[in-house]
């Protein structure tokens, strides 16, 4: 006998004057290997076509379907119902603007973040189409890739009490992104330039070390170690700045 799942979904459509924020309960018979991608689509197609939620790649690669599942921000597509009790509560990710039901506007948030960080390779070199590529150690390329794997799903922001309390806080996703560029020798920004971006209370010094980001990251990116590395690096730089300033004056 398969279970009947009780799925409670946050409902609110800001574009519908008749809509009020509420929790709505749906019932669904569990089938083998059921995940939330299939479950939510079945609910939409069979019970309530007005349901709003985001999926895209449904293979845990694109980061579109992050939502709060029984209290934990996670990717819905790779969440199997069999790992949950009969009751499953779904909420939109906190910390992002709500579009409707389980949809939030992560796109604008991350675009602004990337603009703020200037999250691209800064270099004075021109690209020479005739020239061989610059060499790089494979191990370094792999290290960069390790941090480059972030899919900007927003789970770390939704999980972080600091980010929820202080809306300007950059969060683990941004700090990890900067760590990726610091590693990359093609980005010619100086340590000082990185410091100007993240050496603040909105940046690395705002992090309170709660580590929910580390524990929740669906791609298992080593966020804790990046945060520790950045704080140390930026702290040392500040001390250096102090000594240098002392010497100069």
């Amino acid at each position: 006998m398969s279970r009947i799942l009780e799925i409670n979904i946050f409902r609110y459509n800001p574009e519908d004057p008749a809509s009020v924020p509420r929790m709505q309960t749906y019932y669904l018979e569990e089938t083998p290997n059921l995940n939330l991608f299939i479950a939510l689509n079945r609910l939409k197609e069979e019970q309530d076509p007005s349901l709003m939620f985001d999926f895209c790649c449904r293979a845990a690669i694109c980061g579109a379907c992050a939502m709060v599942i029984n209290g934990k921000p996670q990717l819905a597509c790779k969440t199997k119902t069999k790992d949950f009790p009969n009751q499953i509560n779904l909420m939109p990710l906190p910390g992002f603007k709500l579009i409707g039901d389980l949809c939030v506007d992560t796109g604008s948030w991350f675009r602004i973040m990337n603009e703020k960080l200037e999250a691209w390779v800064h270099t004075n070199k021109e690209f020479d189409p005739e020239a061989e590529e610059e060499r790089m150690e494979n191990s370094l390329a792999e290290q960069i890739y390790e941090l480059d794997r972030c899919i900007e799903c927003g789970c770390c922001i939704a999980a972080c009490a600091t980010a929820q309390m202080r809306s300007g806080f950059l969060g683990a996703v941004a700090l990890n992104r900067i760590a990726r560029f610091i590693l990359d020798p093609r980005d010619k920004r100086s340590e000082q330039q990185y410091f100007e971006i993240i050496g603040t209370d909105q940046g690395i010094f705002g992090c309170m070390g709660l580590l929910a980001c580390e524990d929740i990251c669906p791609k298992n990116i080593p966020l804790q170690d990046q945060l520790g590395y950045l704080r140390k690096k930026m702290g040392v730089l500040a001390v250096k700045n102090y000594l240098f300033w002392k010497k100069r004056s």
Partner: protein
Amino acid sequence: MRATNVRKINFSNTVAYLDLSQAITGIFLCLFMLTHTLLVFSIIFGEKCFNKVALFFESTGLAWSSGIFLTIIFLFHFLLTARKIPFSFTEQAKFWSQAKMINHQDTWLWLVQVLTGIVILLFGSIHIWVILNDLPITALKSKHLMQKGGWVYFYVLFLFSVAFHLGLGLYRIGVKWGFITSQNRLKSKKYLFILVGTLIMIDSISLLFFYF
């Protein structure tokens, strides 16, 4: 794209210094607490021994000077950490609902750290006031104090707060500054909890000696 095109904005190192100072004062206070625990523990070797230790600090003037010095560090540490404490109601509400939502150990433990910090601020001030106003420290005075009214409850709560705040604080410093890595996080946490336990045990023994 050019590195030279990056806007130069006004930046300051202040935040970095504040954050560093928070960690350094924290570590300093931890070291002090560990020493303090050991010194008080001398009671188990008898009142004479305890008094000798106390006398040493009295006669060299260390009791006064370090008392004042520590008070300053103590308050400074509070001011630094206060930058992170949610004082506004909105912030508190957000933190609370977030902690409830994700039900995540390290997030809860941060709350414990804040609450114990506030307890320490209050009780610590009282403790320092009481002790420094009644120098020199002797075993007898301490015993009288302990056996009077609710002071024993005061000290039990104080002791637990200090121990937890110390353990969690060290953990947090380790994590934030990259000394505790994802590799050794669980182990570090375990060791720090053992430290907390040991502290509580040692201080409880001292308390018992004063109480009876």
